[in-house]
């Protein structure tokens, strides 16, 4: 197994030298299987980090660990204070058995947005994710892509400074994909830190400043995006990009 390389981010760091996200020695096992095996990573305060890796590498687990949803067995995750309340778009979003609008209202309530401010915010979110026409539809009857967009809108409801996106465009059409990418870039432009899991190499190239490559529960490589895609350092990443799999 190749050594993990931690390469500093190419994007400019904010004044303070503290990293935005510092993960060290993260371990996680379930029913005897080691799923995350000593992940250590340092990410900046801003910018878009793509998290790549084969199916089952542990990307979704890592994202959930960063979101604080699953406690690691060992290791630490430190988020800078401003990133302390991340929003997560799940790979398989679970929507409430309510209308699309009510799902957003619920999220806004949990985010502490005062009741009076919610309707305007909901309209805005629906607009952004192109769901205005479907506001009254029961969320669970929406099409796959529509549900994914609603999950994205819900994540944006809390106006998070850290956005964790687990394959947010996996079942989106080209137009919607472009829209979500635009939203993501706009958010990053506002200083929101984004970690994006994707299997779409082109998407990672379009959006990401740096790439973390996860393989069998290890962060095998961390490099600026252009370097990662042109000359991946690890054999695993090379194989992944070529569509092979090293076992």
């Amino acid at each position: 197994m190749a050594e993990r390389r931690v390469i500093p981010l190419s994007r400019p760091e904010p004044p303070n030298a503290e990293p935005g996200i510092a993960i060290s020695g993260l371990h996680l096992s379930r029913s005897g299987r080691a799923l995350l095996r000593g992940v250590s990573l340092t990410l900046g305060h801003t910018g878009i980090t793509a998290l790549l890796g084969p199916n089952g590498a542990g990307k979704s687990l890592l994202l959930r660990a960063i979101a604080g949803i699953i406690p690691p067995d060992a290791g630490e995750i430190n988020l800078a204070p401003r990133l302390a309340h991340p929003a997560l778009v799940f790979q398989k979003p679970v929507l409430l058995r309510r209308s699309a609008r009510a799902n957003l209202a619920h999220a806004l309530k949990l985010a502490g947005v005062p009741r009076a401010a919610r309707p305007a915010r909901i309209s805005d979110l629906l607009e952004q994710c192109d769901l205005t026409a479907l506001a009254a539809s029961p969320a669970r009857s929406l099409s796959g892509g529509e549900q994914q967009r609603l999950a994205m809108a819900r994540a944006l409801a809390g106006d998070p400074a850290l956005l964790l996106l687990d394959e947010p465009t996996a079942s989106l059409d080209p137009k919607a994909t472009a829209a979500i990418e635009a939203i993501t870039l706009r958010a990053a432009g506002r200083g929101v830190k984004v970690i994006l899991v994707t299997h779409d190499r082109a998407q990672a190239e379009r959006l990401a400043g740096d790439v973390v490559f996860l393989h069998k529960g290890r962060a095998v490589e961390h490099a600026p995006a252009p370097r990662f895609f042109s000359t991946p350092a690890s054999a695993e990443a090379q194989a992944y990009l070529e569509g092979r799999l090293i076992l």
Partner: protein
Amino acid sequence: MSAFREAIAEAAGLIVRADADFLEIVALSAQVTGLAVLIACAIGFPLGALLAVGRFRGRGALSLAVSAAMGLPPVVVGLVLYMLLSRAGPLGVLGLLYTPTAMVIAQVVLVTPIIAALTRQVVEDLDAEYSETLRALRATRAQAMGTLLWEARPALVTAALAGLGRAMAEVGAVMIVGGNIDHLTRVMTTAIALETSRGELALALALGIVLLVASLAINAALMGLRQRIGEPAHG
């Protein structure tokens, strides 16, 4: 089976005549049962949700106790309340024994465990689906409970109906703490028990039929409600 025919005629007669005594009994039954089920829901829903998603010491034990309490024998509940509320008992000064209030308390004790245990199961199942999402939305434990209870409402109606069934059918406890006193604490079930011990089987059966008709009506209404509130779920 002439006894049944007789009973049905008698039941019809009771409803048609609707004499004052009979109406008094029906009204008291409805009040006691209705109030008891409402209170049991008010306690049982949050308690069940707490047992499902709460994280506190003794949760397992409490959950087990609630579940076992579904098997509380009414006579025992009645007895314990009798001992507490009797003149000689510690709460005797309240003068609650042989009042409708005592009957409501007895039914609440009997019904709450059923509603809480069923709620726990329902909310636990939903929590398996929603817990990560709610945590990602940074819901507090109380907010999560609220959301899950709201999502669970069709199933909660069924839980409430199970509790209602128990409360409507219950006789042992209300007999002891209510005393089945005519014009004061006599309800449908204790009246049925009385007619039975009098050997007035047809009249007892007639009262039972009336009770069942009431139960059918309430269930129909609540199941309609259940369907209506359940619709967005699959719609």
